[in-house]
């Protein structure tokens, strides 16, 4: 059952290293190669890949690359051409890649070009009865399945937080470069920059230990019959500053910005967690003023420890969705909590 496995990655925005998730997925690919008696090849894409390759040299794997200015930034046409060329050179049965936005855009198309098949958001890859199975979630994290395919090459894009990152000493890597000519029809699209959302602070922090979720309750009339949006903004932003947490929002809250209601200025659709939002990975999550309805909570699938503050003792969090529900006024609790954290 020995498999020829290709681990494919691209350099990160620094242009020098690989994104953190690449090391995690490399760890999974190396385990699979060892478990299946397979051979691992590494493929790298970027403007300049030497430094990134040096960091992986101690895996002992053959390293192929496509590099050059046209491969510096994400772009479907050139990324697809680069990935396709590496796959054709490595002739793998399995291609394992990190689920970065750059690769999620392009790898499915590459699978199609190579008459292969593709699955994304893989959470684990196992060998059972001499067959390779991959696990992933269906219906937005409601049902988990183990799947197999006969088609080869089989492309598996693995999510972050699913494997220990591989580490190894850097040394000079021997790279086999592949020349991929770029034609004018591949440059119809050009990179024009990276934009951060209209927000005073960078509120989405994928590496944070804590997810802080704000729900629509923050902008609703409170016990005194009034809205307290300004206080809510201060409480939430201070908490993000004091705790280093990443900010998530419920759909009801982020939708308000499109509906001319009193809103939290820093909250955008990018913050939305849930069915039609994100499914972030953080070890802990704290929900505030959010009811904990199923379409929201499916976005918490990968949050291990969950606590919630809500005035309603019968809210969704009370029904097996959080470890602890504090039945309390989030405005009051957050004020005290901010004071305590500011001291620490």
């Amino acid at each position, binding site marked *: 059952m020995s498999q020829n496995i290709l681990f494919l990655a691209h350099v990160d925005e620094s242009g020098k290293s690989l994104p953190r998730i690449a090391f995690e997925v490399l760890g999974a690919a190396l385990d699979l190669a060892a478990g299946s008696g397979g051979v691992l090849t590494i493929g790298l894409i970027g403007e300049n890949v030497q430094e990134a390759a040096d960091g992986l040299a101690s895996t002992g794997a053959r390293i192929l690359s496509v590099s050059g200015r046209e491969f510096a930034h994400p772009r479907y046409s050139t990324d697809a051409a680069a990935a396709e060329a590496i796959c054709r050179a490595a002739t793998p049965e399995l291609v394992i890649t990190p689920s970065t936005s750059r690769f999620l855009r392009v790898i499915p198309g590459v699978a199609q070009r190579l008459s292969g098949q593709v699955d994304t958001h893989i959470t684990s890859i196992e060998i059972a009865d001499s067959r390779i199975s991959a696990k992933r979630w269906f219906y937005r994290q409601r049902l988990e399945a183990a799947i197999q395919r006969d088609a080869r090459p089989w492309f598996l894009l693995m999510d972050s937080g699913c494997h220990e990152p591989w580490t190894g000493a850097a040394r000079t890597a021997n790279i086999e470069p592949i020349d991929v000519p770029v034609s004018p029809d591949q440059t119809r699209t050009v990179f024009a920059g990276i934009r951060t959302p209209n927000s005073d602070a960078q509120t989405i922090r994928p590496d944070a230990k804590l997810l802080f979720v704000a729900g629509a309750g923050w902008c609703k009339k409170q016990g005194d019959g009034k809205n307290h949006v300004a206080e809510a903004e201060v409480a939430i932003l201070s908490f993000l500053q004091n705790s280093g947490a990443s900010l998530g929002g419920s759909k009801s809250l982020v939708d308000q910005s499109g509906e001319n209601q009193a809103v939290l200025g820093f909250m955008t659709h990018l913050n939305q967690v849930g069915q039609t939002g994100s499914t972030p990975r953080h070890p802990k999550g*704290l929900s505030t003023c959010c009811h904990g309805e199923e379409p929201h909570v499916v976005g918490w699938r990968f949050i291990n420890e969950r606590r919630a503050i809500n005035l309603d003792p019968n809210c969704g969090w009370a*029904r097996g969705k959080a470890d602890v529900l504090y039945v309390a006024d989030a405005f009051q609790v957050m004020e005290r909590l901010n004071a305590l954290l500011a001291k620490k």
Partner: protein
Amino acid sequence: MSNVYHIVVCAGIVPDPLQTLEPITTPTGPALKNEMMLPAVLDPWSGHALYEATNLAAHFPGSKVWLVSAAPKAKLQQVMMNVAQKASFELIPIDVPANGFADAHSVAKILGEAIQTIAGLDRSRLLLFGGWESASRGAGVTMQLVGERLGIRDQFQGVDQLTVQNDGSLEILERIEGGRHLVSTCQGPPALLGWATGNLPEPKNNPQVGMANMRAIMPALQKAKPASLFQNVRYVSVTPPKQQRQTRVVKDRSVDEIAAELAEWIVQS
């Protein structure tokens, strides 16, 4: 005739997210218990794609929107009763038993074939829209597979904004890591855009638009031929998550006590 777009939106249907989903095994693979009884909605991110498409078409006269949907016909009709009130489009239905367990490669094949047979579609003006992920399979691969089949090499995923520039080029914002957007400029169609939330609120229901739309949608649904989907995936197991948490509900505690407990929990590594 410049800046006239032929926009094809690919959109499936999914169970209403408030429903509880229970997997069952059938002779043809996994399915959902009482699947045909579950109320369905237009797949949310492809719904955003549809609203963005009709908005774009409204700004560029002569443009046209088609909605291609591979779904069980009876359920699709039910969903159309609502969606047809929100946007004007021509429906291209494909009657298949597609659900979250259907293989994306097979779905892409029938979508690609259906798009190739659309009468009057000018592929040089084609903007192929869809959701960047479905709420069923959640894979985010179908659109790219369709795009490759149609030879579209300018593809964008997680799109939140499309702006037509004065020179006719398209400025496109795609979601990337860390809550940021990648900004790209594309010379123009043909291009493929897998939409995230976009910027438009869901349009209000307009019964007049609905009635006009349904006059063409009902015959199209009646004519839709049943097709089958080849299954490339072998499902070893399908299970709902095991863990139901034992929630500790903390009532009657002072704000200070709660804040202290939370502060301790947050700083623990």
